[in-house]
């Protein structure tokens, strides 16, 4: 469910003339997920390093310099129980140079 909500949100900007209520519905779904103890993170645009075990990266080119998350196929999901987080789903991303 968290993945579907993420995908919906990702597609929303591309839909021209989408009613504003859609974003509200998505926000509400995200709130429900948060209350159920799921933290969904979108690493889009963040720096990528080899220490990020929260991400499963496909690295696109052999260039030099800091790698960046260029696309997010699946978001990172942590589950939270009694204040302690644990990684539930690694984010699937494409990393490369901008």
């Amino acid at each position: 469910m968290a993945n579907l909500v993420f995908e919906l949100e990702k597609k929303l900007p591309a839909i021209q003339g989408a009613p504003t209520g859609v974003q509200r519905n998505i926000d509400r779904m995200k709130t429900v997920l948060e209350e159920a103890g799921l933290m969904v993170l979108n690493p889009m645009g963040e720096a990528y390093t080899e220490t990020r075990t929260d991400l499963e990266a496909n690295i696109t080119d052999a260039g030099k310099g800091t790698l960046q998350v260029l696309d997010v196929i699946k978001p990172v999901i942590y589950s939270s129980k009694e204040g302690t987080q644990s990684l539930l789903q690694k984010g699937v991303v494409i990393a490369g140079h901008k």
Partner: protein
Amino acid sequence: MTINFAIDLGTTNSLIARAKNGNIEIFKNPSGMKVTLPSVVAFRKDRILIGDKAKEYIEKEPSNVFASFKRKMGTNESFFVASNGSFKTPVELSTMILQELRNFIFTGETPESVIITIPASFDTIQSNATKEAGYAAGFREVLLLQEPIAASLAFANKEGSDAGKWLVYDLGGGTFDVALVKIDEDEMKVVDHEGDNFFGGVDFDHLLITELFVPYLENKYNIQDLSGKMLSAGGKYNKLYYQLLYKAEEAKITLSNHSNAEVEFDMEDESGVSHEVFFTIERAQFNALIRERILSSITFIRSLLVRNNLTASDITEIVLVGGSTYIPLVRGLLTEELQIPVNTSIDPTTAVVEGAAYYAGSRVSRLEQSGRGSGGQGMGGQGSGVQGSVGQSADGRAGGGQAASLIEVKTAYQHHSREQEEYFAASIKHAPAGAQYRITRADGGFDSGVKQVTERISEMLLLLPNTQNVFYLKIYDGQGLPLPVAIPEITIIQGKFSIHGQPLPNDICLEVDDVENNTTHLEVIFERNAILPIRKSITKTLSRTIVKGSEDQLLINVLEGSRYSSPQSNLPIGIVSIAGKDLAADLIKGCDIDLSFEISESRDITVTAYISMIDAEFSQVFNPSVRAVNLVRMQEEADYLYRVGKRQLDNLLTKERYEESAVLQQAMDELKVLQRKIRSLKEDDVTDIKYQLDDQKRKLAQVVAAAERGDRMLELKEEYFYKKMSYESLLQQSGDDAMKKRLEAISMDENEWINQCSSQFLRLKISEMDRLIWNIRKKDLGYVTNLYLHYAMKPDNAYSDVRQIKALKSRGDEALQRKNADEILSVIYRMYDLLIDKDDDEMIKGTGLRG
């Protein structure tokens, strides 16, 4: 003592498991929680990565990343590591994988004996090389077991097979093996084997891309040579290639369980226009692509049988191993072509390690036999008691404990951070030569990889937002074995808990209706001490219909003060009123309203209400220096307080408690004046008077509440405790644990609120308990009958419609005879609706938001 631990040291993936009391537990990678560890090692600039992270760099830095080194075991071949100019042997790389697998053991055990599986094709030199890797990884006893035997053990333990010949068909991600196994005189052995080191599931993914995805995209978006463009360095479609690889694998897995798979992704065409691509792949299409490859694997089996003078009828079954054997066509073709039944009773991914663990669970350790400890404890694992001063040893193998006792570690870092990553530094003194360290985050989202210890180390620690991040720093000796050095956890609080943020001095609450008790109560939005800025969204339903054009209003009343007090005695800090006259349509009872509350660091409060039914948003920002007072609401509250106070005053006078009544009497006089003043105030008054009146109202509310507390509260408390006790015993009898837990949750933190809460709050708690118990009682015919009789005994004129109540009573009497609890209940509900006097004396007009 049995060996218990087993490792499947695979070409593509490795696993570790343990046998305990006949059950097998497969350990998961603490980072990512997968049971499989890719058998890949990467040497980055200053750190070593093992497993998933290493695999990511295979294509980017092939000269520093090593995979499939199992195939080179026992050869003189060494791998040149370009990043540091060193050479690594296959044994050394395998050692790293084995050590990494040891880290999966979350129980803190440090096994000294292990079973490691090897392919049937391994000769003595290759087998010895595997043993060598095992010893180097810190095991003192290493026993080898052939993979097909291990898989056979896994299925034999499930199926109880004890004789015959069978085939173990192992098709993994990148390799294929088939082995002929037989049991002869109670001994299970591999008779012959065959394999292809360059055939596996990855080939199927590539076939999907080249034969289906690419032609579809080329055709649909008019792209020439998409394959070439995807694979050329720095090409426009590089990103698409990786996206397709992922989608192909996903589709392949889906097609193992479904007849078709939907593929969905975004891409840009040659002219830069973005498209949402969506198409379906049928299993038949996928089968057509991979058929030839699978048939060629069957050719291997045929030649194996011919070589051993066997026919298919000599084979009892085929045992499947490896993730690619989930594919239905693999299973189907094997049965169809060879006419041999396929056994699918074991999990192909874990079969080898499971079987090896069964074996480990039955093999007695030689170390134990020779009188030495098997090392279940010690060596600084969790629970080994290595707390206290840094560097203390908790025993262990030769050298480890002693070396560790000398190590001094001092750490330095910010305990609070508002950054996404935080700088960490430590000084490590007296570490043995070649010592290594590793920092991991407790939730599995960060791993520094293995790094060389120097006197000063540093690392940028990646932080999870708005939470407490816990990291562990561990030190290993030159062989990669953990040194029992007690280093305190590294704890960094990110974001909202930052010391820079201001805590809220009081609870921030929303006033909502308590429909059953005809009153309102407070619902906490933000708890006291929460750190600003803060935001929260909630959804409420309307408790009554607000008619378009009417004077009625829906109130979103945000108050500051204890959540246990009454709404009237808390400070109003933001109120949004949505009046009937401002509405374009009626707001129907039961419709949803999304509320979001946001408090900035400067304590500005933004309240936003969105009503989906009429697609309208109402938003208002309240400044802390400007109080929010709604005159209509203040008037309703003053009237309500007067009614409650009057009732209480009469009560006190009847009981001749003159001293207390004098205080209340004075408050009532003041309330009368206050009511007059509020009524005379104009809605658009710009003076401070309304704030002064609100202050007075709150003070008087406290006097009324105090008068109630001494008397009414006593009754309510008695009712609360009595009901709690009787409900507890009722639930005890019913044995419903879930309900018991819910009752406990209602009375949670009771000591904190019982002596300071308002009557509304206590009534709310009682109602919550009543509602909970009602779910049990409404099924109890005796209880329902008594309840009906209670209402039926009331005279007809106590109800608003005499004709209807007569009809209901006659229906109720009939339902009583039928002993139908549900039917009696429905009559009771209707009767209650018609009841005129529902103890509405203390009623206050609600906010319109259901609590």
